[in-house]
């Protein structure tokens, strides 16, 4: 009898390890593969030991994505959430809606857990912090630095990392491997407003450099001036704002060729009235908005062959870049 229990205890150890590995391997082999672009963040916090800490746009979801029955409820830390995913033709996914129950039908979704208690109130930033279990990417000792260098540092050219993720039927996500975006992005401040500047010069002038960091020749459709970019509020902003420059829709794009290493700089003067934002019932320069209102510049019409989106680091209208 004792022998039986001993063999059972040994079997437990072996089978627990096998089950852990095989259940993940099954997802890797059979799961639906999607690509999730990591968010450009301050790379100083990325490494701990020999893994890369990853932050996704999916990690911070606007509360507006919550299904109506959840919107006014208190959600507790650790709550399981199901985030439906909208996949574009390049397999890159973006969040659709957020629910506490598994979506029905043939919907693509990922399962995560809420990182902190959430309740809607006027002080609370309406953002849900969600963890999916794919926030660490282990690499061989010493290779982390190479990845860090390629991702770039603050005030340097940063190349987006795109994670290939396998999704199981239950929404479990497992990282398969990583890819690099085709374009690196560098955001710098050309001029910053004085502390008590007049309202007409209360915002910063920013420069966005995009550079072909791939090994192939790329063609990018670009509209005149900065019309190919939109301004999009992120994470901590209490409301989702998307700003476009006026009359851009009427303009047509022209293809511009970027050989490997080619770059182009775009200048954004945030003092221009078309970048002003409705805040407390009046049009306000971005530099006068509270600190929670931060934005990214997003390239609007990525062609199908482009690996990764062209997205800038987050910044505040006064010119503080994350």
């Amino acid at each position, binding site marked *: 009898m004792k022998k039986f229990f001993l063999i059972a205890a040994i079997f437990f150890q*072996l089978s627990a390890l096998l089950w852990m590995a095989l259940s993940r391997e099954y997802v890797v082999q059979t799961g639906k593969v999607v690509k999730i672009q990591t968010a450009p963040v301050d790379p100083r916090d990325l490494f701990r030991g020999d893994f890369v800490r990853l932050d996704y746009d999916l990690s911070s979801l606007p509360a507006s994505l919550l299904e109506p029955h959840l919107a006014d409820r208190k959600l507790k830390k650790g709550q399981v959430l199901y985030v439906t995913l909208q996949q574009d033709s390049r397999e890159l996914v973006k969040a659709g809606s957020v629910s506490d129950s598994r979506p029905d039908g043939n919907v693509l979704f990922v399962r995560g857990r809420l990182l902190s208690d959430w309740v809607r109130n006027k002080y609370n930033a309406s953002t849900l912090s969600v963890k999916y279990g794919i926030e660490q990417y282990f690499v061989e000792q010493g290779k982390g630095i190479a990845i860090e260098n390629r991702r770039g540092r603050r005030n340097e050219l940063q190349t987006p990392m795109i994670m290939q993720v396998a999704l199981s039927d239950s929404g479990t996500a497992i990282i398969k491997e990583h890819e690099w975006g085709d374009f690196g992005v560098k955001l710098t401040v050309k001029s910053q407003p004085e502390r008590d500047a007049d309202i007409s010069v209360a915002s910063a002038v920013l420069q966005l450099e995009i550079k072909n960091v791939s090994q192939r020749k790329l063609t990018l459709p670009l509209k005149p001036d900065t019309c190919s970019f939109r301004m999009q509020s992120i994470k901590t902003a209490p409301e989702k704002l998307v700003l476009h420059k006026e009359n851009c829709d009427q303009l047509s794009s022209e293809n511009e060729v970027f050989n490997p290493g080619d770059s182009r700089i775009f200048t954004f003067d945030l003092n221009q009235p078309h970048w002003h934002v409705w805040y407390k019932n009046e049009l306000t320069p971005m530099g006068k908005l509270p600190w929670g209102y931060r934005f990214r510049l997003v390239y609007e019409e990525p062609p199908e062959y482009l690996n990764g989106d062209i997205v800038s680091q987050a910044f505040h209208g006064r010119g503080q870049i994350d």
Partner: protein
Amino acid sequence: MKNPHAWLKKELPHWIQDGVIDSEQAGQILSRYPERHSLSWGKILISGFGAIMVGLGVILLFAYNWDAMGRFSKMSVILGALAITHFFAFRTRLGNHHLSESLFILATMLFGAGIWLVAQIYHIDEHYPNAFLLWGFAALLLAWVLPSLPQAILTVGLVMIWHFSEALDFDFATHHALVLILIGLFPLIWRLQSPILARLVSASFFVSLGLATATVDERLSASVLLLVAACLIFFSFWSASQANGWFSHTGQELAKPAWLVFAGMLFLMSFGDISDDLIRVRFNEPVESLYFYLPLILSQLLFLWLMLKRQFSIITFVVEFSVLLVVAPSIFDIYPVHLYTLIFNLLLLGLSIGLIYQGSHYADARKMVWGSLIFTVLVFARYTDLFDSLISRALAFLIVGAVLFFAGTVLNRNRNRDRQDSP
């Protein structure tokens, strides 16, 4: 004498042979001195810790995470190593017990390494304390089925790491840790008959209890820790009178950490401002009532039992008085802070003097040391509260020094007397 059982086992046949006692009496004498499974620290250091170090080495080796080694190769190596280690541990368990025990420890370490390796291969960033729970559960299973003291000690360590990481990193109360210790580890003390495990499990239970209650509400911890300590102390008083020598001995071992916690809580309560914060439990959630009333009821039942069986001493009443003192403000919501502070100080003073007296009178150095320690700490704690002038402070230290010096002299004299009296 460190191990009277072994000595008696050797001597008793001669006594029977010489007609001093008969075999039935020999059996009765032997049962009064239970066999102590002394821990061979040499063996533990060489084999147990050796196995742990090898296991940690394997974890670090895989942490290098070679790109050249595919995930199937990595899994094959760790699973193969685990299977081979278990195979040899199983094969040698009858012929070479110590080697087998070391190999089983190594296997449990390899199992832990395997958990982290799978997490690394598949980039899993989940709730990491669960890995320690699974690892601890695997060690607990082996501790039961072998049975094995090193596996049990490893389990205690892993359960503690699990609970600390849950409480400190995630602010989870994790009441399950207490259930795991109660169901999985306390009965293991009897199975392994190990005094060291008794002390270790008792101490880990108090640590877990403190963590779980503090995560619910810090005010809850002090009262609950004192109540549970009182339960174990009363249990030790009851078990002391039991015919089963091992049972009685284990009761004393379990109560050692309980005494430490009990004195510590009394010491905390002797500070007016601290006890004012800690002593009144607000029963906001049902779990708080459960934590408070369950040990209270249990301690009172044990106290009643001791009274009915007339197994009490002055210490029994001191403990009971402390229990009633601590629970009264929570139940009746009345707390005369100055009176309480005075009583707690007097209780600690009485406890320390009682221990010093017993230690010096019965030549028990351990009691003497504990009594002196409590007495000294108490005087230091009250140094700034009570003594304003330098003369008073100097006088206090002179009295403390004189008391300890006197008690030490009495202890030495009585020890010499005992030595001369012994044949």
